[in-house]
């Protein structure tokens, strides 16, 4: 069955044997958005293509987030000096496989992508004062061996628990593997109470890896300033709200929070961040 191409190409990206890096909008701690945005800025990336939203998102109106009308986005950026292609997009509401197929088609056909990394956040019960942990799911045993050079290879097993579904990153990695593109999913822990806001400290981990892997020479100073700003906000939240401080102290002492406490902490931090932003 012939289907029209769901993407638009604005210019020739001029890449060869490139690597595709994928970050999703609105993931835990906004790692994907932050990472792609940071890389695109640091590496002077240009938007060269985008996937049209009509086949993948319900377009019966717009959603409003933080007082701003949102619209689904799925953009490709080319970074010529570093030979990277970046993709940043919302999670589609339907036609998942065709969406992922389009991402890989643009990367392979126009950028000759040979490698792919997806970036995402994973909820953690550790406090923000603990170091973030990153691990990788390799798309193939060869990739696993390659990642072991960076201390990223793991020997864990995982099956999706009943009632849950795999992530879109895993679906993309599976499709990349079918196409013979080597890949890995990079997952960084995000304290659960930062999942709905932002966690630049979690974003630093995959960025450090990509910086080393591709010798990008990234200047981390802006990101470090953001990390300091978020830490400062959290310190102020703790000092103004004894309950927040109590919950975080419990986490710092490796004590478990009750479900209500988990919810309360996440809600209080989200509320605090929103108020401070105004």
């Amino acid at each position, binding site marked *: 069955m012939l289907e029209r191409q769901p993407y638009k190409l604005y210019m020739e990206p001029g890449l060869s044997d490139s690597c595709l890096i994928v970050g999703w909008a609105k993931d835990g701690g906004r790692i994907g958005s932050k990472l792609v945005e940071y890389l695109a800025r640091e590496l002077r990336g240009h938007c060269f293509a985008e996937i049209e939203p009509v086949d993948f998102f319900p377009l019966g109106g717009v959603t409003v987030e933080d007082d701003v009308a949102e619209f689904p986005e799925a953009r490709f950026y080319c970074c010529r000096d570093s030979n990277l292609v970046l993709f940043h997009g919302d999670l589609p509401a339907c036609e998942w496989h065709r969406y992922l197929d389009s991402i890989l088609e643009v990367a392979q056909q126009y950028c000759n992508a040979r490698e792919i990394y997806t970036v995402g956040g994973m909820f953690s019960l550790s406090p923000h004062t603990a170091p973030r942990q990153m691990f990788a799911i390799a798309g193939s045993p060869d990739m696993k061996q390659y990642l072991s050079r960076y201390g990223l290879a*793991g020997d864990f097993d995982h099956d999706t628990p009943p009632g849950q579904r795999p992530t879109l990153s895993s679906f993309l990695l599976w499709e990349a593997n079918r196409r013979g593109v080597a890949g890995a999913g990079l997952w960084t822990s995000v304290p659960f109470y930062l999942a709905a806001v932002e966690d630049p400290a979690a974003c630093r981990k995959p960025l450090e890896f990509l910086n080393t892997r591709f010798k990008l020479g990234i200047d981390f100073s802006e990101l470090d300033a953001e990390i300091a700003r978020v830490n400062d906000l959290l310190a102020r939240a703790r000092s103004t709200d004894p309950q927040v401080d109590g919950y975080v102290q419990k986490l710092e002492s490796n004590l478990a929070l009750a479900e209500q406490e988990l919810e309360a902490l996440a809600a209080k931090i989200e509320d605090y961040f929103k108020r401070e932003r105004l």
Partner: protein
Amino acid sequence: MPQSKVTGVMGVRLRKEPVLNSPVLIASWPGIGNIGVIAADALRKALEAEQLGEIEPWDFFYPKKILVRNGVLEGLEFPSNTFYFRKTEKVDLLFFIAEEQPTPVGGMYAEGKRAYQMANLVLDVALKFGCRRAYTSGAAVAPVHHTMKPRVWAVPNQSKLIDEVKGYPNTILMSDLEGRLGRGNITGLNGLLLGVARKRGLEAVCLMGEIPMYLQGLSVPYPKASHSVVEVLNAILGIDATSEDLVAAVERGEKRVEELYAKFSPEIREQLDKLRYVSYTRSTEPGPITEEDKRKILEELDKFFKGKED
């Protein structure tokens, strides 16, 4: 783009090429009470049908499971959509049984382009094997009581089949339902397949087992209605495919429904118990209550449930 290993039909993987004699297709997707899927699967099991192949799932479904072994992505598992076949003395059968309908996020029933594509793929396979007739199966939500034997609503896709359908046991047509004037909807692929089959010139009938209206929102399987559908299919096909598993599932299902029913308040149960005495189909013989009583009970139930919704 990776090419599928196809055997004659694009997007379908067939493991075998059996020679079938004008087979009858029995296809079903999940829906309310999973009535159709349970019925089709019970027949398949009772007849020990063999696996024939499957529709390549990735264009239709979001994966349901990831398998990581030693830190490496070993694979993804998708909802199953499997074809089976069985040659019997009386009739050759093809089955298509799906674990899910291809829906957008949060939906229960398939619609739009992917639904249409899937219906066509199922029929592509059926027609490749010379299929002459298709049956789908689903649920008919009705003002009936769970202690009653569910009837089967039948909707053919060609008017020439109406007389035949009238001869099926324990079966009614839409025009037998009061106030419906022969009209209605069949949501999702169990209905869409009828339409696509009609477009492609294939006779098809949807058999819908009755499920009490108060169970439709509870997400519980209702094998009692599946049993009624199986009885009808046995009669149509001239076979005797009885499944002990289905009988056991009916018993378990009845127990579960009784437990749920007992959790309703006495006020609700009192209202629902009136359904034991109501027939919403046109009858030719006088029943245990008058037409006026029946009208009043249905009106009361209607008011009661509307009041609950408010």
